[in-house]
């Protein structure tokens, strides 16, 4: 369970840092928070916070049950309604480990180190991602098993893929139960 909470914190921080870096919400709405020995940015916008806590709490459940396959952050342009960027986190869950109460084989320090590297990578990818000039909004998609019961506030949606994307694979990190691969796909700009 500890690792689930850790993972959710990772998610939340990762999503927050992505939002800040890509300028989807104005930077004034973000505050600095120190976690895992790294200074991170969290949003202060109440609506956004409530949305994120909703998603994250649901994710925690699903992660514990090992029914989540992917978590995707989709950035769409508001004018043209097309998807400009896609941040995809593939989660590979070791289902057998769920039943056995295995002790924490990985120390907290290594997990923190990996989290830090992921967040640093997200910051570094901004250098080569194309600028988002039009007003954009983001959405969080969760790929789950088909036989899962859909809770109240959630609904089905499409995969929201980009046509002819450029893909970049980022670092992956593991805890003793899960392995997370991350990648970012963005739409090629015409000038490139």
């Amino acid at each position, binding site marked *: 369970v500890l690792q689930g909470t850790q993972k959710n914190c990772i998610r939340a921080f990762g999503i927050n840092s992505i939002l800040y870096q890509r300028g989807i919400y104005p930077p004034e709405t973000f505050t600095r928070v120190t976690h895992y020995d790294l200074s991170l940015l969290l949003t202060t916008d109440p609506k956004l916070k409530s949305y994120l806590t909703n998603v994250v709490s649901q994710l925690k459940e699903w992660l514990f049950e090992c029914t989540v396959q992917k978590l995707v952050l989709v950035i769409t342009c508001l004018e043209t309604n097309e998807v400009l960027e896609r941040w995809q986190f593939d989660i590979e869950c070791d289902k057998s480990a769920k039943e056995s109460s295995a002790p924490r084989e990985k120390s907290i320090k290594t997990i923190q180190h990996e989290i830090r590297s992921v967040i640093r990578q997200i910051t570094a990818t901004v250098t080569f991602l194309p600028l988002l000039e039009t007003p954009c909004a983001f959405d*969080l998609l969760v790929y789950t098993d088909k036989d899962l019961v859909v809770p109240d506030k959630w609904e089905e*949606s499409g995969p929201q*893929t980009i046509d002819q994307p450029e893909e970049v*694979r980022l670092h992956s990190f593991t805890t003793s139960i899960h392995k997370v691969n991350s990648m970012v796909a963005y739409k090629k700009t015409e000038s490139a």
Partner: protein
Amino acid sequence: MDLEDDTTILTTLKSFNSFISRPEHPQRLSEHSAGSGILQSQYKRSMELLEAAERVHSKNRYLQLDQEKKQMELSHKRARFELERAASDSARDLEHEVDRNQELLGQIKKLEERAEEVNKKLTEQKEANDALQKNLEGLNKTLEERDDKLGTANQTIRSLKDEIRELRQKIQNQDSKMSAQTLENQELQEKIDLQQRKYQEVSQLCQSLQAAQSSCSDHIIKIKELERRLVFQEQDFAIVKTVKSEVARVPDLEKELKRLRDDNAYLRLNTFLKENCSLLKEEVEGLRKKLERMEKTKEELINMELEKELHAWENLGQSTGLNIRKPEDLSREVIQIQQREIALKEQNYTLNSRVRSVERSQSELRAELTQQHSKTLEEQKKREAQDALVRRLQKRVLLLTKERDGMRAILESYDSELAPTEYSPQLSKRLREAEDILLKTQSHNAEMEAQLTKAQEETGTLKLQLQTVSEPALLNSVCACIFFLRQKIEDLERERQRLEEQNNILEMRLERHNLQGDYDPVKTRVLHLKMNPTAIAKQERQQEVEALRQEVTRLRDLVRSLQSGGAVGHSQDDTHNPSFSLSLAPSKEVLDLRKQMESSELRNQRLKEVFQRKIQEFRTVCYVLTGYQIDITTENQYRLTSVYAEHMDDSLLFKKGSNGSMQLMETEFSKTLGEMVALHLHHQKSIPAFLSAVTLDLFSRQTTV
């Protein structure tokens, strides 16, 4: 009890009421007949009734009082009960309080004891404090002493540091010098390297030069030799030339000889001149001598050629390096060489024959080797078969031993179970059955083993046949099978590779799709929150867009209204929507401008009218005074019509030229005035005179007419 009382009360009341009502009824009936006796009886009855009623009432009251009493007793009991309970509770509370009190007292005692202890400790601590303070003072003193010492030490340290600094500076200077030196050293070394390289290059060049020189000298020597040879050759060539020329002369000389001989014979035959004979003889002798000389020269030539050949042979001998002086030597050499050749050829043949014999032996050995291989394989197979047989036999033995043990166990069990003398026929039957089964299984086993051995032998023979080239037909079929199987294998392998490649491609595609976010709809599902920021942003955007559209339509209407309002006038502005309050401010300017425009237009119009009037006045005055109406027909053309014109069309046309002078144009009327034209315009060159003459003329015509 109460209820029963109530019911009794009610029943009594009911009976009373019925009693009262009954006498009333009969009372009503017997009203007329009753007299005073009736009244008395009525009074008595009423008195009785009253008494009964009073009794009933008193009973009721009694019952009520009873009830009340009982209730009061009950309440009293309850109150007492409650009081007792309260008393007991209060007693318990009291006890509790007492206990607590005692506990608190005990606690207080304990606390007092603790306070005493604490006080004692305090005093002890105070004493300790005093001692510590004294210690502190002592320590402070020592500290001060140490500080003093430290101060002195610091001073020494400072002085030492200064020294250190100076030393460091010196060291730095030294280092810098060292570094400069090392740099110089490096530079010098580099220079040295350069020089060494140059030296090496130069030495190489020298060596090459020397080699070239040596080669040059060799070449020079060769050249000299060649030159010498050339000179010899030229000499030979010259000699040969002269000899050739002389030799060339020989046929001529021979021809001459012939000719001379013929002449001689001819002379001899034809003339008998003896005088010429001696001359001729002398000539002949002379010719003979020449001939002899020629023959000598020929011999010399031949000798020379022979000598040349000899020389050549000698040169050959020198060039070939052999000790040759005469052709015999050459022939000897040649013979020797030939002998050597023959010997070598003999050796060659012997070697070839040996090689062939060796090859033959090698092939024979190889055949023997293959035979031995096959024999060894056969032996190995036999051995394996034997081993298999041995194993089988061992297994059989094991099985048999196991069976025997089993049988023995069964027998022993049977023996142990039953009495030793009791061998029932059942047991024996069972034994026999078991033995039969055993035999059957053994025979079956043997048959299977025989089949197995047969099959193995067949495979062994097949293999042997495959290895030895005994039956070509079987081999061919087997080969064909093998070939066919091999082909099949190759085809399958190719297909497998193809399928593997396809698989890889599909896997790559799948992975790429997975990367792009594709998913298998059978296994996975994509979810997101309904109230997600994108949806919210989209809604807001739509609302914005709609609001903007509404504003746009509103602004368009306003603009249209403004445009239409401007044409009509500002009086209509009041009828517009009060929401157009924004346009009031600019419409004031518009109104002012409109007013200005109108006033200016009015002014224009008035001016126009005034001008027209004035022009009209002026024209009429002109017409009246001068007698001509001047009209401008076209640019620079003026038409004058007289007052006294006889016809309407009689008019004079004047054209204004480029230099400003007026010229009369030809018209119908002007043709009739030819004289006046000639007089006034051509001679006098005055148009006013002409015009006045015309008017006078017309006037005179009019008045006369």
